[in-house]
């Protein structure tokens, strides 16, 4: 798919892919500290805390935000979007091509980061088998990428400074308000991601499936709106 390939080349040629991978490795630093001087929690409990308090509310959304807002946003900003718009290619294919590229960067970045973190944490003295934690975190992170990738892709077609708006959303809504206000928590990606995580970790397949389906449904809705928006977009 040429749009996906082009977008991946842009991500890899620029800083977007590198930043996504570097950010996804930040939890590994905390895991290294834990592995060297473990405190009074098990390795599994450490990973759960790390995932709940740092990865899901802050790092994961930023890792998705960077490529998702760059996919269309960079082309809108530098004026290259007409090269895609002035082609006999449906807007649906353009949106799906960009979205696929976002997922091809973010999901591997997140899973690699989580895998490295888990491997390092498992080096702590007395650490149990952390395989199921990695599986649950990876599944939840992939579901979050599916949701947030679509949301931020749409935002970049609607708001000129989508990266800034996304950052404000992540720090204000997901990280701060979502942590303390029950109402906000219920409509944050954080809540759905943690439901998937809890479901996978606790063998509650129904919980994970329901949350995942909700996330996919919201993502599909966002992509449909993105297609409609792209049909009406005006590029000077």
């Amino acid at each position, binding site marked *: 798919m040429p749009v996906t390939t082009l977008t991946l080349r842009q991500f890899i040629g620029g800083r977007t892919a590198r930043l996504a991978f570097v950010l996804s490795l930040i939890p590994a630093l905390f895991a290294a500290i834990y592995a060297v001087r473990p405190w009074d929690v098990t390795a599994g409990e450490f990973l759960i805390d790390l995932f709940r308090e740092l990865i899901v509310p802050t790092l994961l959304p930023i890792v998705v935000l960077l490529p998702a807002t760059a996919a269309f946003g960079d082309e809108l900003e530098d004026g290259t979007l*007409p090269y895609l718009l*002035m082609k006999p290619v449906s807007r649906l294919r353009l949106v799906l091509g960009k979205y696929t590229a976002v997922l091809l960067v973010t999901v591997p970045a997140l899973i690699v980061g989580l895998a490295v973190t888990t491997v390092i944490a498992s080096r702590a003295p007395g650490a149990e088998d952390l395989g199921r934690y990695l599986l649950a975190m990876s599944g939840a992170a992939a579901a979050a990428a599916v949701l947030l990738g679509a949301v931020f892709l749409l935002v970049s077609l609607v708001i000129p400074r989508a990266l800034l708006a996304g950052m404000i959303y992540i720090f204000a809504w997901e990280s701060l308000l979502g942590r303390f206000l029950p109402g906000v928590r219920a409509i944050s990606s954080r809540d759905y991601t943690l439901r998937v995580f809890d479901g996978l970790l606790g063998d509650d397949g129904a919980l994970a499936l329901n949350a995942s389906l909700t996330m996919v449904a919201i993502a599909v809705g966002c992509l449909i709106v993105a297609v409609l928006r792209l049909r*009406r977009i*005006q*590029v*000077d």
Partner: protein
Amino acid sequence: MTETAMPVAAPPPASDLPGLAAGEEAVIALRGVSKWYGEVVAVSDLNFGIGSGVTALLGPNGAGKSTILNLISGLIAASSGVIDVLDRPVRGNTRIYRDIGLAGEQEHLYGSLTGREFVRLNAILQKTPDAERATERTIAVVDMGSAADRPLGGYSKGMRQRIKVAAALVHDPRILLLDEPLNGTDPVQRASLVALIRRLGDEGKTVVVSSHVLSEVERFERNVLVIVNGKLAAAGDFYAIRERMDERDHMVRIRCNHPRQFAAALVAEPVTTSIRFGGDGRLTAETNDVRRFSLLVPVIAQREGIRLFEVQPVDESLASVFSYLVGK
């Protein structure tokens, strides 16, 4: 696409649009087209048609040329009026892009791609049969073969212009829209692009070239659309436009062996309004009746025994037409 946001006065039928010769079919037709951004009017009530061959879209920076090309391309919607390309709406009609190629004014290209990859990408997205061959052919046409494997990020401005033209041409479109294509090109590249544009026009394609550099436009084609302050100031044959400006004095440059004697004889004629002397025995005369003046010059020269080396109308250039229309 019919994009009517506000009621407009009944536009003329396509066959009567300015810019078209009698009976000429409009490939591109704008009828009552305006575009505004909030309080700012970019273009206003444009009515013109563009047929086959090369048409130069001329105007100063900020006149609205790029807005017009973007409207024709369907990249922006008209605030009012009707735009048809090949008798079809363009806005929201992705299929029509098989017939349109645009080399826009944007400087930025996909820096991580090479020139060849960029042209090939356009060929693939255009669903061009045998994209590889089309890519190589078009790169050769713009003479970019030696630089085609270099990243676009390292291209000079002239190289970017040429590769943009290649990308616009790769699917062999019927309509080619070129926004200031000669910007940043050196004289050799310029001559090559001008020859290419003229050849495409001769082949029957509709080529619309915008420029604010008047001497360049004159080299493309005589058919011009002059845009001033977002409005169509003149349309049609450049020399015909100039002919119509009879209320303005014409300038004629004369080189002869006795310029002062010749000037004295000329200034005695009522059709001569002023005389200026230049170097190398040249003088520039202004006349309010260029036809009568052109008949008088050889008669006076013979009578005075003066040898004429050059008699050249100096304000037949597009620059003169343009300055006149802008100041009108």
